[in-house]
């Protein structure tokens, strides 16, 4: 029952997922930072014959152009993490701006902005993403911009609710009465309170952005020159008869596994953070 004291191991397990997520995330970031040192070759260099099997000189073999797959994989971490970070920053900044203004201003501005948010939240995201990517062109910056443009409403909604509730608190009203300006109140009293929400929104957005970037590349809408995990999977799947040999084992599986692990790392880390924010959820 809910009232009973829970055994300690459950509490420990609860925190373990956040720990595992944080450690995995740190490993991915390290790989991305150290890519030039870790990777045996330049991922664009034709370092072997096409479609070589794994060997001591190419641990994961080579792709159809004769490029080292392991090096592609290591450099791919940079793209996923860069797009994830960038798109998440864009999402959160837009979310804070819209949510902050709506919650702070109230009235007609609030109604107008929140109606926009409602409409944007009901739009089907992936088809819109595809439409935008098809028309905007396919660079990493475009990918980040498109993801930010589509995912900010959820953050805006949360931020608005929090700002609105903070605005009505006694100590905030008090600050006004002592003659504090809007900028001072926002920076001094409201921002610190929404900090954890921003962190959580950022992690969630980063997870989605990583998945979407890989998905777009997989569909052929990503940057065709960037060595991303999604693009690696696309090229592997384009090889006729990929599944007739065991080539998928070192070409298709590793990038898929990397994307999944990175997303799960972000998810579990975010879940730990969420529990800190809303202890009630940890039932």
């Amino acid at each position, binding site marked *: 029952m809910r009232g009973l004291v*829970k055994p300690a191991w459950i509490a420990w397990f609860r925190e373990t997922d956040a720990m595992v997520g944080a450690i995995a995330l740190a490993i991915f970031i390290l790989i991305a930072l150290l890519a030039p040192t870790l990777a045996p070759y330049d991922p664009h260099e034709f370092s072997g014959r096409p479609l070589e099997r794994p060997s001591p000189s190419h641990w994961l073999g080579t792709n159809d152009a004769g490029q080292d797959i392991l090096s592609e994989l290591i450099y791919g971490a940079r793209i996923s993490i860069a797009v994830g970070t960038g798109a998440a920053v864009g999402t959160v900044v837009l979310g804070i701006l819209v949510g902050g203004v709506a919650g702070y201003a109230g009235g007609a501005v609030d109604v107008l902005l929140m109606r926009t948010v409602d409409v944007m939240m*009901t*739009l*089907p995201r*992936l*088809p819109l993403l595809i439409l935008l990517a*098809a028309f905007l062109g396919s660079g990493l910056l475009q990918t980040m911009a498109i993801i930010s443009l589509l995912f900010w409403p959820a953050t805006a909604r949360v931020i608005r609710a929090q700002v609105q509730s903070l605005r009505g608190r006694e100590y905030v009203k008090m600050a006004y009465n002592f003659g504090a300006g809007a900028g001072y109140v926002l920076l001094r009293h409201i921002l610190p309170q929404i900090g954890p929400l921003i962190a959580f929104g950022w992690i969630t957005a980063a997870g989605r952005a990583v998945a979407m970037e*890989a998905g777009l590349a997989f*569909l052929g809408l990503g940057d065709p020159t960037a060595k991303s995990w999604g693009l690696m999977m696309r090229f592997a799947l384009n090889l006729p008869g990929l599944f007739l040999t065991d080539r998928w084992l070192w070409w298709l599986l590793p990038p898929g596994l990397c994307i999944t692990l990175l*997303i799960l790392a972000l998810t579990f880390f975010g879940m730990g953070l969420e529990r800190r924010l809303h202890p009630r959820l940890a039932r």
Partner: protein
Amino acid sequence: MKSRVAAYLLTVWAVLTLNFILPRLLPGDPLSSLLDPESSEYVFDGEVRAALEAYYGLDRPLLDQYLAYLKGAVTGDLGRSILLNRGVGELILSHLPWTLLLTGTALSLASVLGMLGGAEAAWRRGTSTDRLLTTASVIAGNAPVYFVGMILLIIFGAELKLLPLAGGRTPFAHYDGPLSAAADMGRHLVLPALTLTLGLLGTKFLLVRNNVVGILGEDFMLVARAKGLKPRRLKWSHALRNALLPFVAHLAAHAGLAMTGAVFIETLFDYPGMGRLIFQAVGARDYPVIQGVFLMVALVVLSANLAADWLNLRLDPRLAEEARK
């Protein structure tokens, strides 16, 4: 409900307008390159070119173009495919049934499994079974569907060779009757549908579990228990039943997610549905098809949302009361 319908119409209008503005607003207007004889993407088929020009009416004022576009959208005239020289509406009609079959199967399976699993996990909350199921569904719900599909494809298609690798049915197959045709389509459906089911199952399971956990703490559950009802009755007719209301709204929201998943899954499995259509269109920069599919999917998702709102009002008298105020 009236305000909901108004919001729905507003959103539909936003979708239609976005679909109209985007190609005109963005740099590198794709149509000009299709109509420019110097360009590498020049459309050589004179008939298609004429149809394109006429459809987009690029020489007319913007407002005229917009009104003509709205009229076309309402009457179901979505333009012509540049790649296949067929009407976009006709293309969508031939691909939509496959997607509906796939998403319908997966949504139903995921709903049933999510409800049963969620109620069971909530009933045993805090035990290792609960932890295991919860963690598994977080993983299943967050792993990209294309990766899950890939694993299933490798295991059941490539290694065990139990199921076909790709397609909606065997090419050039000769069927003895409708039964053998259905069996063939069924065999092709298993892996894509299973992949989508797994992708949708995670969130459904978590939602039902958390709802049931909440309901188990309600007073009426204590009363039911005090009456001496059997645990089975408590679990299924009292706890799960009351947890189903929020599930309905969620189901509609998930129609959109199912469509999203379907795009990746159909690409991976070469399944002949809407996802496959949009994938081909993207590859060939076949803009009328991309726009048409976007419009279609948006309308399906929005209608599902509206239907869920309506159903929720019917199912929960408390909400209807609130809406009347």
